[in-house]
């Protein structure tokens, strides 16, 4: 009985995302963006410890699939790079993580989205996730586990974590693809009944991040499974992961509502 009352203590603490906007405070480092600037010098690329910055034809591009949010570029060149608290950074294509987004990929992206929508039509409102760690640093697991806490409470959206891969619709993979996990990961993927959506969570899973290359990692999980959705971040935040799951299901609202009352 005392626990029942205790459970009522703080009222409703659950986020109303995605119906209403929610997120982290403005000081939070969600992603790096390239700001409007003048004539970048060529050596910008050397700033980045993971090689996420490229300068091509005078255009600065930042690959969020490599960016570990270390702030080195933002500190050195605040005129070119800046942090945003936005968490909706997941993409349906690897190339879509490069900012500013290249315009001509839009058409291809629409095709990818249509294909994915057809595949996931059967599981939109009730979906089960199986998580596999393929050599993570342990932080991403915390953020995934946070999705079931009362603040995010993904059960309200019909999203559940499942123990058996045979009951799962989404394979959520973390880690830089350590050599010892490639076979167990591929085997888990085989045990999932189709249709399956594979999400690579975090820059380690996308590109190997800072921990690759090494003799024991393979530069991301792409070596073992085909990925449908990429979520940048080191680690990605719970909101970022939730956005990726909804993106995979085609459930991200096109027009966003007003802030929660």
């Amino acid at each position: 009985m005392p626990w029942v009352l205790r459970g009522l203590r703080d009222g409703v603490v659950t986020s109303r995302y995605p119906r209403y906007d929610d997120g982290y405070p403005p000081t939070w480092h969600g992603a790096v963006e390239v700001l409007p600037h003048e004539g970048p010098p060529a050596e910008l690329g050397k700033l980045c410890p993971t090689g996420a910055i490229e300068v091509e034809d005078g255009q600065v591009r930042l690959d969020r699939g490599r960016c570990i949010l270390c702030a080195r570029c933002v500190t050195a060149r605040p005129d070119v790079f800046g942090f945003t608290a936005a968490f909706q950074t997941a993409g349906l294509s690897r190339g879509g993580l490069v900012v500013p987004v290249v315009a001509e990929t839009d058409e291809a992206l629409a095709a990818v989205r249509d294909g994915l929508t057809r595949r996931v039509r059967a599981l939109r409102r009730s979906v089960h996730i199986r998580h596999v760690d393929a050599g993570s640093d342990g932080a991403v697991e915390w953020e995934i586990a946070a999705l079931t806490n009362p603040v995010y409470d993904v059960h309200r959206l019909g999203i559940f974590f499942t123990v058996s891969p045979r009951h799962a619709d989404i394979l959520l993979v973390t880690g830089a693809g350590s050599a010892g996990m490639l076979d167990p990961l591929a085997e888990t993927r085989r045990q999932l009944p189709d249709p399956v959506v594979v999400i690579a969570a975090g820059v380690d899973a996308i590109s190997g991040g800072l921990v690759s290359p090494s003799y024991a990692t393979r530069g991301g999980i792409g070596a073992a499974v085909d990925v449908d959705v990429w979520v940048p971040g080191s680690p990605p935040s719970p909101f970022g992961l939730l956005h990726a799951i909804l993106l995979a299901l085609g459930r991200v609202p096109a027009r966003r509502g007003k802030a929660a009352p």
Partner: protein
Amino acid sequence: MSAVERVPTAQRWGDDVVARVSTGQRLAALTGSAARGGTRLAALLAHGGQLDLVETVVPAGSDGYPSLAERIPGALWYEREIHDLFGLAALGRPRLDPLLLPLAAGTPRPRPGARRSPATLIPEPAALPGHVEGPGVFTIPYGPVRSGVCEAVEYLVEGPGEDIQHVRVRVYAKHRGLEKRFEGMDPVTGVLLAERVEGVASVAHALAFAQAIERIAGIGVPPAAALVRCLYAECERIANHLHSVIGLTEAAGLAVATARFGYHKEQIMRLLGEASGSRFGRGVITPGGVHALPAIAPEQLLGRLTRLGRAVDADARALMGTPSFLDRLRGTGPIPHTLAAAHGALGPLARASGLPEDVRSARPYAAYDRLGEPSGQARPTGDVLARTQQRWAEVRDAFRLARAATDALADRPDPQHELAVPVPPDASGRAVGWAEAPQGELLYLVELAGGRLTRCKPRSASFHNMALFGPSFAGDITTDFAFIEASFGLSIAGVAG
């Protein structure tokens, strides 16, 4: 390092280390490094606020070095690790099972510290010993893909049925080869990798690494930076201890308690995220200081810490007054004082078994000498209950220390004061850095030549304490497994390296 002792032969080195341990010194780490003409072995020994390094060189072509594990049980996992990484045998040890890197015979080893390394190494499960077999004996293989959202690890639970007689831990699937990855990096990049060695203890790892670099360069950290380091490290401790408790309440099926502590943990991580930009406090600590002050004003931060501390405390008291919960913890997963002491156990786990050592008071760093000693100490019965009580005592302490650090930050007269001292670009030398991570004593043995890392050995408390996981199952049954695992509060990433 307080003292460095070089011993000419491996035999005398072994005798020396054993003699030191028999006088009450604690073997804190045992590690190797590729050196000219062979492999350099280094033993770190802690005693009364000192950390001595005793080393020798095992010449190339020799069979190995004398095993210490017979006389110092805590050395066994280090000897297995050295065998995996350097191919060096511990003589007198009949079976040195692979731990981090099972490889087929004759495969070249990564040899951290050497210029060259194999480009890729594929683990060979056939190199691992088989599981027990016999009439009426079961092995329950559990992992590496396990139930729930957790890190990849394989447990082999062996016993005649419900009773667990033996648990073997296999962590190699997660091995990432990080020690080699550090090599060639500059310290400013190295600290970013250190944050990713054991992601849930990012702040502690950055802190221990940065302090090793600062010791090499002979620089001190600005007072405000030291305070910020303590503040974030204590927030990290609170989050980790709450995570461990959530594991326990989940295993006990206490849904409301799980939700409550999940909410508290989310709040402390959001606080850290708002203050530092990262929910894990990443990208703040740099060799020489910190990048920024908290983005929350000290008065506001103080208020939020106080409110959150009160809420956590109230729920913790309710939890520790719930008999059905305590019944599951009492007497479960015992680590008696003698076992903990013989192994040189670390952190809250050791303190719950009556070994009070805490790096924050034994070898104070950052601003801990100014903030007051951590004093929390549970009744050391060594079971899951004692470990849980110990964590609550430490959570209360952590809130107090975080508030003290915030207070001191608010008192600073000039907010624009420098926050970091530059590290000389050509710094060279070797040093050990340490921190009390939420899991226990964390060590970084770092070598720098011309401003580049030539060797970096993180030794997490997770690695050291994980060796006690199997022995703690004396007389427990399979349903106790989740409780014992959560009560250890370790990170597999920190074990596998």
